């Protein structure tokens, strides 16, 4: 696993006077799944937004496939974002488009595929998340879990090098979480490179190669999931992980 895909090098980000990220660095290899946990307001979401340049970092560098992306001209940024998929906490589906149009939009307007090919690929991606039957429904007609799966299909359609998941299940009713996690687990097993901000410990245990614990804009501890969950060195990590395991349960969803 030495095929380095993404390198984040001491990035810092402030909003006004508040420093949200304070020197975060890590390396993500191809096919790797990283899970980021930590209290709210710690900068986990901001970290993801820095990586796909929605909120470019103030300091530090990010490399994708050994090319620095943090100093690109703004006209070149969309081409980078296309390679980095993102799945949002509140799904962020385009409300005026059906499920299949949500997935096909990027193929048609960014990759300039013709209609036949774009819709063929879009239906394949919807199939992958088990929603081909719902292709003509609008977001308002889908359940939360279905919306999030469309969100995942939309990201997949662009054939990204990696996908960022920003608390993909935290806005879902408990009984809908399982279907989304199942899709994510299947992706991980297919070799998709992923960074997931999530508190789903079961998910982390079953597919993560590494768990990162963040607090106050810094990485406090990182390691294999079983190590971190059973044997964290830092007392803050232990305290936090025991709290979320009480809340979310040890087993998680399979």
């Amino acid at each position, binding site marked *: 696993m030495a095929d380095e895909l993404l390198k984040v090098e001491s990035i810092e980000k402030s909003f006004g006077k508040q420093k949200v990220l304070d020197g975060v660095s890590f390396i993500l290899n191809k096919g790797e799944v990283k899970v980021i946990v930590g209290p709210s307001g710690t900068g986990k979401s901001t970290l993801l*937004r820095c990586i796909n340049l929605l909120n470019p970092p103030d300091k530090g560098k990010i490399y994708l496939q050994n090319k620095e992306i943090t100093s690109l001209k703004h006209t070149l940024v969309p081409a980078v974002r296309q390679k980095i998929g993102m799945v949002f906490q509140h799904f962020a589906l385009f409300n*005026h488009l059906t499920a299949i149009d949500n997935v096909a939009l990027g193929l048609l307007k960014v990759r300039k595929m013709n209609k036949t090919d774009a819709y063929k690929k879009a239906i394949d991606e919807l199939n992958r998340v088990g929603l081909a039957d719902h292709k003509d429904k609008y977001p308002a007609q889908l359940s939360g879990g279905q919306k999030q799966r469309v969100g995942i299909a939309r990201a997949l*359609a662009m054939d990204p090098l990696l996908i960022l998941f920003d608390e993909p299940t935290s806005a879902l009713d408990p009984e809908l979480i399982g279907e989304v996690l199942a899709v994510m687990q299947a992706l991980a097993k297919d070799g998709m490179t992923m960074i997931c901000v999530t508190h789903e410990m079961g998910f982390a245990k079953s597919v993560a190669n590494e768990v990162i614990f963040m607090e106050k804009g810094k990485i406090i501890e990182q390691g294999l999931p079983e190590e971190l969950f059973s044997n964290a060195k830092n007392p803050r990590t232990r305290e936090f992980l025991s709290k979320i395991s009480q809340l979310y349960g040890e087993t998680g969803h399979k």
Partner: protein
Amino acid sequence: MRFIEKIIPYIPLLTKGLGITLELTILSAFFGFIGAIFLVIGMLYGNRFFKILSTGFVTLIRGTPMMVQLFLIYFGLPGIDIRLSPLTASIIAFIINSSAYQAEYLKGGFLAISKEQLEASYSIGLNKWKTIQYIIFPQALRFAIPALSNEIVYLIQYTSVAYTIGLPELFYISKNFASKTYMNIEIYVFIGIVYLILIYIVTRATEIIQKKFYIPGFDLSHLK
């Protein structure tokens, strides 16, 4: 009925007046809409220069009476040797005025689109302009349909202000009729009904348009 007797010879003039009212309304609504698109993009997404320019324009136009704008164009411009016919002056004044109002209505629709949807659009590689075109605009327009329809209703009625610079639109002809026949009640009730019918048609058309572009989740009818 004496009124019917008197009004029959006036029918051609009234029809012409109606035509002018409609011409003025349709041109103002249409070109005002085009102008509004540029204004709202300038206000929300323009650089500093365009932001100040478009915001300043909208503030100025919405902050001064329509009559002042109309008189400035019709009576003021001859001062710098620009002489316009009442119709041209009215069309220009109403397009300018309506573009500012429509820009504000559109702005409301633009701002109603969640930031996350924009981020989602950027995240699949669409740039700012494509995001405006494919994500923001189709949704904003749907949100703005009721307000834009309201603007047309307003224009139909408010174009009657153009009678003050001698434009022979529907109200001007009616006033003319009243001063010649002294049948004030009859003609103003009659003309009121004509305006009412026009506005009923616009209201119905709006409902049809809303149905045609209906999308689940954009339904505001529960707010009625």
